[in-house]
Structure formats: structure tokens, C-alpha cells
């Protein structure tokens, strides 16, 4: 039976219940690590199964596809599940020491797994309305996490985050409602089938735009990006690194999934829209990052700029382009989370996130310098790290398909990224500690639990660069499934095994 397909949702649910019943902080901490490892094992197993025997579907309660609740795991979902659980593992280890600053750890882990549940749910659902529901699960748990320390600043950031994302949910729900009114179903495979018959294409454009705006807000794409830098620098750094790795990527995941399945028959319009939006997102995010002098803000604007690359891959809409977007997404989840973690370590050592107030780390903490340089250069796209190949694939796809403008912008943005990474490097590591900010005395000791998560993610990023071939092959296979949707439709609608 395919019950295993529900495990990515069930495991976090069970763990949450355990932690609601038993409120010990120690138990919660170790359940956090063990549970994330379990999720990782489960998603690797699911990915292997999908690779071996094709798309995995689960019709809850045995109700047939367009009527019941469908869970679908294809290669794309499998890849995202794996990358997501890797981030969860790293963050759960990181939180063991970093969350302790606040009270009531137990509640952090409850919402950590609630976030994991929403995340996995959005990755594996096969139904537009359920996608909305999982987005809400994600939104609510991330709101609780973002206001976790309840300082005024966090509440301010959290309210901005919540307000704009609720607006996004509203758009999404409106778009979904229009869809349902027009077609009578919300099962994505069935919708894709109906839209391919072409009867509905004209009147559903409104709903397509609404859904595009909704995912744009969730994914922090250019005209809707402002909530992200307004809120990401407020919470505990563990939570920021968790969000940096996962939240906006879910928006991009949904965008790729829904638009490849449903709307790409009107290719010319969407391709143009995606490419323009992608270019603006990249450049504006990158330029805004260069103006910042706070590590977390620099990195936050970078998230936006790099979302642009993923949207660019979708806009190119060849198997190579989408494979590039997937590769970029996985690379970005690893490198970005690691970079935020190192920012947290710098803060722990030097007592500040402001670049003006810190310095001299290269001499004092060479290990930290290594840990920073790996994700930073990966983000900037220096070979042989993962970011180089991610950008290489996208640029190659852009040139092959004749999108010269966007390719030029991608190269230009890579320069901007390099510039701001070098800025952090110069300010935090190379220059002398500013005289009026001597930092923390006596020096803080970092133990292996602090250093392990960024080292783990950094080495994964190196491995992803060294073994770019196999990873790219997975991404390309997943992209082929996305561009040729008939296997997806067939396995959901017709390939049922009650």
C-alpha cells in the first residue's frame, strides 16, 4: 500500500502530539533532532521509491481522484522533501544551543514540527485547496515562530509578515474559488486535464493572475517582496535560518508546480511575465543587499535576489531551464541556511550583527572564516561549489533558448552577490576590530554542536558542486516530468490502486 506517502505529514503530527503531552524541554530538544532525522530517512526512502517505480499517489480513504483528497509524490516533490528535511536536521541541531536563550523550548519544537508538517504537506498535496490549507498551517506556525521571543520588534516584524501573507492567502483562495466555480474540481491533475482540452482557457486568466500574485507574495518575488526584509531580521537566528531555507522556497515550489501543470498552455504571456519579474527580482534584491550594513539584512535581500533565479528557470520553461531552477533551489536552501547560521555564530562571538561593529574574525576564528566562505562563495557562484553549477545551468538554458536580456541580468546579479559577500568578508573577517566596539569579553567558546550544522550544510554544498553531474541528472529527470505532464495526470486519475 502507499500509506508511506502520508508519512511526511504523519511523523511531524505524531511528534507534535508527543510534545504537547510531555512538556519536558530536554525531551523536546532531542525529539527535535531525532524527529528530523526520521523525516530525512523517510523522505530519502520516498525519493528512492519514486525513482524506482514512478509517481507515488495516495487516495485518502480510497475515494477516487477528482473527488477525494490526493497526495502525489513525483520526483520534484521527492527532491524538495529531501532538501527540506536536510534543512530541518541542520536547524534542529543548531537550535539545541541557540534556542536556549529564550524560555519554554518545548513550544519552539511543537511549532518547528508544525512548520515541517505544513511544508511537507505543500510538497506532496495533489489538490489546489489542500495546498491552500497547508500554506495556512505553514503561515500560522511561522507567525508563532517569528514572534517567539515576544519583543516589540519581533511583534512588529511578525505583524507585517502575517498581514502581507494573509493577503496572499486571500488572493490564493479567491483564485481557487474561481477555478472551482468554472471547472467544478480542484484536483490538480484533473484540472490540468480539463485545461488541456482548452474549453476554459480564456475565462480562467483572472484566477491565474490571482494565483500568481498569491505565490508571488509567498515567494517574495519583486513587487511583493517587501515583507521579507521587514521581518527576517527580528527573530532568533535559528528561526531566521529555518525560514531562509524553507519559507519562500515553498512559494516558488508552488509556483513551479501549479504553473507547469495548469497554465503553461498560454506560454508566450506567462513566459514573458515570469522573465520580466525574475529579472527585476534579481537585480532589485541584489542592489538592495549592497546597501545594507547588517548581516541578516544583507542575507535577507539576497534571498529575494535569488528567488529571481528560480523564477527565471521557470520562465525559460525548457527542461534544462526548470532543471536549473530545481538545482538552484536546492543549492540555495543549503547555502542560505548555512550563511544565516554563520551570521548567528558571528553574533555569538562578537555580540553584534552590525558590520560596522565587528571585525578581526579571520585572525581570531579561522574556522568560522572557513565556515562562512563556503556558503558565501557558493551563493556568489564560485566554482567548484554548488552555486556555480546552478547559475551555469540557468545561464546555459537562457542562452540556448535566446533569452539574452535575462541572462545578462543573471550574470550582472552574480556580480552584485559577489560584491556583498565580499563586503561581509572584508568587514567582519579582514578588517581590525573597531576600537570602540571591543566585543564580548571573555571570549565565547563555540563547541561542536554550534559548528556542526553550518559545516554539515557547507560540506553538502561542496559535495553538490563536486557531484554536480548526478544531482543535475535527478533535477533534469524531475524537470522532464514537470514539462510533460501526462504521466502525472495518468498516475493520479487513472493509475489508482484502491
Amino acid at each position, binding site marked *: 500500500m502507499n*500509506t508511506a506517502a502520508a508519512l511526511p505529514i*504523519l511523523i511531524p503530527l505524531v511528534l507534535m502530539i508527543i510534545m504537547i503531552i510531555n512538556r519536558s524541554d530536554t525531551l523536546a530538544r532531542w525529539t527535535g533532532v531525532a524527529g528530523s532525522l526520521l523525516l530525512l530517512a523517510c523522505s530519502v526512502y520516498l525519493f528512492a521509491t519514486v525513482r524506482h517505480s514512478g509517481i507515488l499517489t495516495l487516495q485518502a480513504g480510497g475515494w477516487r481522484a477528482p473527488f477525494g483528497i490526493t497526495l502525489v509524490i513525483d520526483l520534484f516533490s521527492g527532491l524538495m522533501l529531501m532538501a527540506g528535511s536536510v534543512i530541518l536536521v541542520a536547524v534542529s541541531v543548531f537550535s539545541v544551543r541557540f534556542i536556549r536563550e529564550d524560555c519554554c523550548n518545548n513550544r519552539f519544537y511543537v511549532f518547528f514540527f508544525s512548520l515541517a508538517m505544513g511544508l511537507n504537506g505543500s510538497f506532496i498535496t495533489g489538490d489546489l485547496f489542500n495546498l491552500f490549507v497547508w500554506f495556512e498551517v505553514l503561515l500560522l506556525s511561522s507567525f508563532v515562530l517569528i514572534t517567539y521571543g515576544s519583543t516589540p520588534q519581533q511583534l512588529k516584524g511578525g505583524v507585517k509578515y502575517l498581514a502581507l501573507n494573509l493577503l496572499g492567502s486571500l488572493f490564493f483562495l479567491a483564485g481557487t474559488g474561481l477555478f472551482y466555480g468554472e471547472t467544478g474540481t480542484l484536483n490538480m491533475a484533473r484540472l490540468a486535464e480539463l485545461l488541456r482540452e482548452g474549453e476554459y482557457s480564456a475565462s480562467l486568466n483572472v484566477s491565474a493572475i490571482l494565483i500568481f500574485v498569491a505565490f508571488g507574495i509567498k515567494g517574495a518575488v519583486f513587487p511583493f517582496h517587501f515583507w521579507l526584509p521587514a521581518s527576517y531580521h527580528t527573530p532568533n537566528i535559528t528561526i531566521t535560518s529555518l525560514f531562509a531555507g524553507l519559507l519562500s522556497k515553498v512559494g516558488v515550489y508552488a509556483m513551479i508546480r501549479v504553473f507547469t501543470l495548469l497554465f503553461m498552455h498560454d506560454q508566450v504571456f506567462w513566459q514573458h511575465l515570469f522573465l520580466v519579474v525574475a529579472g527585476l527580482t534579481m537585480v532589485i534584491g541584489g542592489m538592495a543587499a549592497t546597501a545594507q550594513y547588517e548581516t541578516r539584512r544583507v542575507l535577507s535581500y539576497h534571498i529575494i535576489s535569488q528567488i529571481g533565479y528560480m523564477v527565471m528557470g521557470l520562465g525559460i520553461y525548457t527542461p534544462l531551464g526548470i532543471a536549473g531552477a530545481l538545482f538552484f533551489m536546492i543549492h540555495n536552501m543549503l547555502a542560505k541556511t548555512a550563511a544565516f547560521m554563520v551570521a548567528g555564530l558571528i553574533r555569538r562571538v562578537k555580540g553584534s550583527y552590525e558590520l560596522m561593529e565587528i571585525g578581526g574574525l579571520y585572525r581570531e576564528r579561522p574556522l568560522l572564516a572557513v565556515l562562512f566562505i563556503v556558503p558565501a562563495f557558493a551563493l556568489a557562484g564560485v566554482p567548484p561549489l554548488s552555486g556555480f553549477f546552478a547559475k551555469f545551468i540557468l545561464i546555459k538554458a537562457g542562452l540556448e533558448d535566446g533569452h539574452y536580456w535575462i541572462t545578462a541580468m543573471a550574470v550582472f546579479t552574480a556580480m552584485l552577490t559577489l560584491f556583498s559577500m565580499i563586503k561581509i568578508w572584508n568587514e567582519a573577517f579582514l578588517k581590525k576590530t573597531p576600537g570602540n566596539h571591543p566585543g564580548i569579553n571573555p571570549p565565547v567558546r563555540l563547541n561542536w554542536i554550534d559548528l556542526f550544522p553550518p559545516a554539515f550544510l557547507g560540506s553538502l554544498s561542496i559535495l553538490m558542486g563536486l557531484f554536480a553531474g548526478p544531482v543535475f541528472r535527478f533535477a533534469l529527470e524531475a524537470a522532464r516530468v514537470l514539462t510533460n505532464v501526462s504521466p502525472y495526470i495518468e498516475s493520479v486519475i487513472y493509475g489508482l490502486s484502491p
Partner: protein
Amino acid sequence: MNSVILQIAEKYIRWLLLFFALTALLRGHHFPGGGFIAGLLAGLAVVFRSLAYSEEKVFRDFPVRPVTLLSAGLIMILLSFLPAWLTNRPFMTGVWVKPVLPLAGELKLGTPLVFDTGIFLSVTGVILLFLFSLKIPEKWK
């Protein structure tokens, strides 16, 4: 508030609300109703009581802690998945037993009822949690 009228009225309305909650819970699978609405109704009964007396009194007299209700409900939801899983049917399939009672006829019992009861308990628990933790914050730690 300390109004005798409200306190007397509460004595009757409480049972009425709980009765409606039970009805909504039991008819829920085939007709409008279900665990969520039943949970709201049952929560309303407690909220009403706390209006007539005070939150502290209701909290003191309440036989179980809200978190216990919530956890029991969540565990019941998980348990309702088990029969389908163990008998190797698709995830969340309803498993029914239909004993025939001497006078009333066939009685339909199944995992959807267990699931709905789980929802009922957790919704009630959450509402009580809201009520008590907003009104008496130091009690909820």
C-alpha cells in the same frame, strides 16, 4: 458578572448546548454537523458558564485540564487511522462495524466516529485553552 438570572438560566442552557453538541457529533457523518461544530457548541457551554460565574471558578471546578482534552482528542484522531492501516486498506479508509440491536435496528459504528470524536475533544480543549489562558494567564504555564 454575578446575575442570578444568568446563573439559573445557565443551569438549563448548559444541558441544552451539550445535548445539541452530542446530536451534532453523532449525525455528523451523513448530515450537517460533525466534530468541529460539536466542539464549538460544547465549548460554548463552558464559555457561558464562565460568563455566569467567573473564569476562575469554572477553571477550578473543571474536572480535566484543557490540555488533557486536547491531547486525548489528538490521540483519538491518530487511533482512527490504525484499523485501515492494519487491515491494509488505503490510508484513512473508514472501517465500519454494524451490529444489529434488538429494537433499534442496525447501528453503524466506524472509524469516522472515532475521528469525529477526536476532533470534538480537541476543539473543545482548544476553546477552553483560549478562554482560560486569555482570562487567567498565570494558570497556563
